[in-house]
């Protein structure tokens, strides 16, 4: 069953990484993806999100759509990436969530997708 792993990135932390540290992090993500493959875990979708300031919210006020610049919550962590993995249950998803490469201050949310009839 598909589970979504949402990586909440400590924005300030990422901005202070050296180029070498960035490269290392990318390499660790590659290794993570390889580990998933080797364990036979399907990965329907995964992506890196462009830095938060490009976020845009469209909020309905009656019939009117309001465009605003910026993310939904003004927290220190903003959504930086996501992995969708196909695993039997939440425990398995949690197992892999622990192994996502992170920096100090990051958080990872794990949510199951709703089983659909399709």
């Amino acid at each position, binding site marked *: 069953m598909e589970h979504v792993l949402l990586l909440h990135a400590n924005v300030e932390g990422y901005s202070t990484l050296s180029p070498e540290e960035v490269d290392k992090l990318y390499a660790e993500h590659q290794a993570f993806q390889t580990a998933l493959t080797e364990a036979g875990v399907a990965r329907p979708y995964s992506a890196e999100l*462009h*830095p938060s*300031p*490009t976020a*845009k919210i469209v909020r309905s006020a009656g019939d009117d759509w309001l*465009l605003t*610049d*910026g993310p939904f919550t003004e927290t220190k962590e903003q959504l930086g990436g996501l992995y969708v993995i196909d695993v039997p249950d939440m425990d398995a998803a949690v197992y892999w969530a622990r192994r996502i490469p992170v920096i100090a201050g990051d958080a990872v949310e794990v949510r199951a997708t709703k089983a659909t009839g399709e």
Partner: protein
Amino acid sequence: MTAVSPPVAQAVEQALRNSWGRLLALLTRLLGSLDLAEDSLQDAFEAAVTAWQRAGVPDRPEAWLLTAARRRATDRLRRDATLARKLPLLVVPDSEPGPGDLDEHRAEEGPEVTTIPDERLRLLFTCCHPALSMEARTALTLRCLGGLTTAEIARAFLVPDATMAARITRAKKKIAGAGIPYRVPADAELPERLSGVLAVLYLVFNEGYSATSGDTPIRRDLCEEAIRLARVVAALMPDEPEARSLLALLLLQHARRDARLDPAGRLVLLPDQDRSRWDDAQIAEGLTLLVAVARSGRIGPYALQAAIAAEHGRAARAADTDWVAIAALYESLDRLTGSPVVRLNRAVAVAEVSGPRPALGLLDGLDARLPAFHLLPATRADLLRRLGGTVEARAEYQRALGLAGNAAERDFLTRRLTEL
């Protein structure tokens, strides 16, 4: 470095003022990158100083600069083979030449360039895209269309240079990162997007207009930059009456600049201004623009605001002001926008026509919508004063004082308080 003679310095300065926006817009389309376009153009201007000093100012400075910028862009791309790959590229719809096609334009070099296509509208709509914050839009518009330096813009908005530089860099990154397209919006989106552009220009104007007492040159320059850009937009969008309306509004307001402060730097209200110090030429131009707008039959919010400013502008003395017309215009504007500030101004007009009491009624319920706007309690105070409610008036002036933003405003309110 060779000393720069005044004629050369003046030619470069003039080219900067007149051509920066137009050249940047075209280069951005040719190169597909705002960053590369800006860097190359900057290089070209720097080169111009030396080259024109040595060989004289060219007959067609704009063509010279365009060629120089394109050459430098090609050089940059050649020198750093990875640069093209790393560049954040814009989405340039319908572009004939794309990044890397620069060589095809070598044939157009020099005197063969007869007209430089005006791509400024694309640049303007991109800089004012709704995905960007108003702050970002304003900074970007002044930098790209106005050709103001980062330092000049920083001074205008009273922030450190580094802050403004970071703001502009972030905005440009966002344009590329979010896929904001480099184009003029399709007809269906145009009215909404245009009002976004006009809002940016109006904001720039108001930054300059609401100057603190002792208005410094940079603030007046802001008003004039806004007017200059409004002219460009009006010229480039002849079928959009709102663009002309904004220009009219800015001209009619700016016309009053020399009468707004007394010799001591204190605010003078509209009814008390010495109208002989108003700029008649700008008023005339504003009025003429509005005739064309009225003929178009498309009356938007800026047209209404300009019409109100026009009523003031055409009154030789305060007593000649047609308040009935103004109140009617504010009512239309109120209905159109639902803006609390408009409601406030409408109340002022209604007071002139029907007395303070109905005006006070209009102010009901506005406090929740304008909790930090000093003009609301100030207006209410004035109406109460006229009705003889001195005690309540005093309380409202005090509230207004607590909210006032600059010395001129505070000084004015204090004077009103002591006059009570």
